[in-house]
């Protein structure tokens, strides 16, 4: 009797297991197929897009990448994206690290106010303020134009980087100071006894210990900056000027409706995706662990 129940139990268990694998497999397919399909489509010839979309490419048509890189200016955009991402990361780290260090480990007049202020900043969403920032740049350029005869703020990748870095300050400071606050105070005291100044203590002693949280910040913000498009689309308005990859791709998508340059577009998509996918494959563990370390992002 007991034995029979056991067998029934095992059977339903095996059935449940099979069901679970089917569900997991389904979601895997739903996620992997579209991404893989883009890679396949990027080596198809234009004529192949009028037919069964699941057909394998007739050959490896790498000309798409050449066309995308030169004709569609994806090469320029790629460089701009690298430039903007690198500069934004640099500005962010240089500005946020000292601030997070002082805010988490020093008490001074106004420290509570500043801490609360940066916490409140977590709730300011970029999408709300992108047009005000744009208009600020418009009037700034007007002023510069009347004084020096050329503009500076709009269509300037560096300013895009500064805006990107500034808008991610609250989250970064929150994440870093959360980590820095857990380090014991003894380190600084020992450093002072040895005669190290404040600056030396921060750079030589504390920041090396904050490395895990700094890496988390770099990983997350690299992805965020590389993928971002609302700010760069609004601030880089000159059609012949600098553009980041996502913005260039967006324009290609719109042009593609009229001209049907599918191959170029999918090649461009691969160019945007590839760096993030490669990075993800290398650091996926740190990334998903860092996510829970930093709590939520907005």
């Amino acid at each position, binding site marked *: 009797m007991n034995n029979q129940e056991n067998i029934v139990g095992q059977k339903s268990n095996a059935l449940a297991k099979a069901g679970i694998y089917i569900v997991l497999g389904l979601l895997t397919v739903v996620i992997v197929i*579209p991404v893989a399909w883009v890679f396949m489509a990027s080596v198809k010839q234009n004529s192949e897009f009028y037919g069964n979309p699941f057909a394998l490419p007739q050959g490896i048509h790498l000309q798409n990448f050449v066309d995308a890189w030169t004709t569609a200016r994806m090469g320029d955009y790629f460089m701009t994206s690298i430039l903007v991402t690198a500069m934004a990361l640099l500005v962010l780290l240089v500005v946020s690290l000292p601030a997070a260090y002082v805010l988490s480990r020093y008490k001074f007049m106004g420290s509570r106010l500043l801490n609360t202020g940066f916490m409140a900043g977590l709730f300011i*969403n970029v999408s*709300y303020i992108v047009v005000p920032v744009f208009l*600020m740049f418009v009037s700034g350029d007007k002023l510069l134009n009347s004084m020096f005869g050329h503009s500076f703020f709009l269509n300037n990748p560096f300013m895009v980087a*500064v805006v990107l870095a*500034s808008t991610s300050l609250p989250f970064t400071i929150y994440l870093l100071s959360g980590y820095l606050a857990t380090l014991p105070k003894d380190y600084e005291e020992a450093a002072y006894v040895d005669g190290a100044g404040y600056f030396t203590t921060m750079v030589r002693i504390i920041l090396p210990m904050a490395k895990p949280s700094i890496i988390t910040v770099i990983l997350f913000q690299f992805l965020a900056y590389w993928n*971002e498009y609302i700010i760069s689309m609004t601030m880089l308005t000159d059609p012949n000027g600098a553009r980041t990859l996502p913005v260039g791709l967006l324009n290609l998508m719109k042009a593609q409706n009229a001209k049907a340059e599918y191959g170029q577009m999918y090649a461009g998509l691969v160019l945007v*995706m590839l760096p993030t996918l490669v990075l993800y494959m290398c650091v996926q563990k740190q990334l*998903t662990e860092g996510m829970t370390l930093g709590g939520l992002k907005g």
Partner: protein
Amino acid sequence: MKKNKARSRFIVACVAPATILAIIFLVIPTFNVFRMSLFRWGGYSPNQEFVGFNNFITLFKDKNFFQACRNSILLIVTVTVITICFALLFAAILTREKIKGQNFFRVVFYIPNILSVVVISAIFSAIYDANYGLLNSILGFFRGEADPVYWLGDQKVVIYSLVIAMVWQAIGYYMVMYMASMASIPESLYESANLEGASRSRQFFSITLPLIWTNIRTTLTFFIISNINMSFLFVKAMTGGGPDGATEVFLSYMYKQAYTNSTYGYGMAVGVVVFTFSFALAAVVNKVTKREALEF
């Protein structure tokens, strides 16, 4: 005394750059959103005219704005509910069941989260393409290819096409989130439940869910706020609000008014209403979902 001076100098030097940048690029623009909502201003012309609450009065009679509200609320509700349910289900499966390749599934499910919204929009445009799209070519097997579904062209369908794309993007992120909190539930609770003969689903509803409830609440609040932003990014890249306003959402409408349409003051009024609405909604959800916190 000398040490004190050096200390203050160090503090100021460290904090000042961040504070200045935050004031210029966060505080002043936010302040401007609220201030300019009371003005009639094109954005480029020098004449700004103070109109009080006129922008808001116009707004509450604006049919297009109400359509944007409807779409936004629909997206908030459906995308949030579907994503969180799926994320919980998959998180429970991957943490509770003994599965081969658990790590592989986690890595794959997180992939959409690292892609740009522009990329995802392009992928889904290819999937939804009426003539040569992936979805219609699959459906073609079952219902013939004579009358394709216009996933992005049909006003009644397009919003659900957006829902699918947004859920696709968000599941992995929230799944990883829930997996972390589920992993911290002590194994002994499940062992004793097994001895009592509680089924898998019973264990999920009586042990897992109540114990990670605090986490679900936090994600829910954040989800609502981030969904308003994400729907803007998706709409801007995928449909541009069309066809005929069928996918216009809160922030895409604001952007259109302030930037494209050059009715800046009006756009900022939209921003103020949306901002207030999102926080009110988050607060209400936070209140409604409040339960007594359970400890392990």
